[in-house]
């Protein structure tokens, strides 16, 4: 019976191997990487990290990414909350069609939309701002947030709403001070998924920015092509992109499993 613990263990080992390789490479010099195979860094160096933390084009990439990802998470969850409430509590004209239409937006390949998005956001005049990327990522994050939150809200009995009205709560006060705290696990899970999909998306983020709001991922591709192939530097930059995600998932670790089970997602 104890043997079955081997399965997750082997799986996690498999997951960690490429990550180990990336981290190990970030401590090697580019010469060592290209010279041949070495399991551990022979010439341990922190140069790559020094470059990233002292060169503004590098560290601003991270700051830009974090700004638009946070902005997107806040917008997505904030507008998805009332909408999910409407879907879970009320029947209204066209509700089912609307819900399915929202989901279809996750199916449109981002590659299809890259050029029209560029034209649209240039026309509106917010090209190369954090807001542009945050709004564009709403396309696939809002439907997901509505979907997740609706599942969680469905698990909350309607008696809660009715009791609050009997007690004299107005709707906004009930919603903010009673209902949202009740489903905070759901808000956590929805925020986590919004953060995740906005953080990892590159195509739209790259298309909608030039200089001012350039995401870290775009800085990396530019370095890869212009400065030869500085593998050590790229590995260090890649390693640093894992950290924000790791922090976020650490905060929601208990909600992820429990949360999904609670909602009927």
């Amino acid at each position: 019976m104890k043997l079955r613990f081997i399965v997750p263990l082997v799986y996690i080992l498999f997951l960690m191997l490429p990550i180990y390789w990336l981290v190990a490479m970030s401590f090697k010099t580019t010469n060592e990487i290209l010279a041949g195979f070495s399991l551990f860094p022979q010439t341990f160096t922190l140069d790559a990290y020094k470059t990233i933390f002292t060169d503004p084009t590098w560290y601003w990439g991270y700051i830009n990414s974090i700004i638009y990802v946070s902005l997107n998470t806040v917008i997505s969850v904030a507008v998805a909350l009332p909408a999910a409430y409407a879907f879970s509590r009320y029947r209204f004209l066209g509700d089912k069609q609307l819900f399915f239409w929202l989901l279809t937006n996750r199916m449109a390949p981002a590659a299809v939309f890259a050029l029209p998005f560029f034209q649209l956001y240039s026309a509106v005049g917010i090209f190369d701002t954090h807001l542009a990327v945050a709004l564009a990522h709403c396309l696939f994050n809002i439907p997901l947030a509505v979907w997740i939150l609706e599942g969680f809200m469905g698990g909350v009995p309607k008696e809660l709403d009715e009791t609050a009205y009997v007690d004299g709560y107005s709707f906004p006060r009930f919603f903010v001070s009673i209902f949202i705290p009740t489903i905070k696990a759901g808000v956590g899970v929805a925020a986590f998924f919004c953060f995740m999909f906005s953080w990892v998306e590159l195509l739209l983020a790259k298309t909608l920015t030039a200089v001012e709001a350039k995401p870290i991922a775009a800085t990396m591709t530019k370095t890869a092509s212009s400065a030869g192939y500085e593998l050590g530097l790229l590995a260090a930059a890649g390693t640093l992109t894992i950290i924000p995600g790791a922090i976020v998932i650490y905060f929601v670790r208990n909600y992820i499993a429990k949360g999904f089970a609670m909602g009927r997602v």
Partner: protein
Amino acid sequence: MKTENQKAWFFVLPVLILVAFNALIPMMTVVNYSVQETFGNNQFFWEGLTWFEQILRSERFHAALGRQFLFTGLILAIEVPLGIAIALSMPRSGPWVPVCLVLMALPMLIPWNVVGAMWNIFALPDIGLLGYFVNHTLGIDYDMTQNPLAAWVTIITMDVWHWTSLVVLLSYAGLVSIPDAYYQAAKIDGASNWSVFRYIQLPKMKNVLTIAILLRFMDSFNIYTEPFVLTGGGPGNSTTLLSIDLVKIALGQFDLGPAAAMSLIYFAITLFVSWLFYTLMTKDDLN
């Protein structure tokens, strides 16, 4: 029960406006391109349905579509059973659960171009850990830049590495929601492990599995960045999936008309298959 209330539209309005702004306007631009021909200088000529006809008959499109279905089929066939198996063998509670979940979710949080780049280096024959191990320790000739089969194996392995955890997390969430009483009842009845899985665990996981499969289908069908960075669609065209081909036509050759027509066909196929999945998997609920 839900109450009828048309004012609920006001709650949905912000979502509707934001998503419509992002979805409808670009979609209309694509539709607009798909029926016109341009030679630059912002001059457009009406073409009708020529591009659609051309794309639907093109061998290149059929080949890319075939590769796309092969890719999506393979990763679903591997990731879904594997994810369920891992979720089943995880402990239900205890201090190791959060550790496992955090470690498992890690690959999903890495930007997609970094995923592609790290697997590219990981698989290089002489300096990558995987490539070195397969070539020098196992003695199997493996080079994804030369051999189409090796490129496919690498792409599939990368996607399994990247996304199996999504299936694990969702199935696990479904599993922990099963009350202990169910298992005790099964024990009293002397049910085998298989019948516990088939009649208790699988039905309880059905909802979360529907989401997992739908998400995996949509996202793998639209996959672009990871395989593009990993293999660039090569060697030759062997790993040119649908969206890689699309970007080649749209931005590489700047053939906006055909690219737009292809986008719409592509979108229609995704929509149809997703709808099919959704209807098949939720069919029992309606009865």
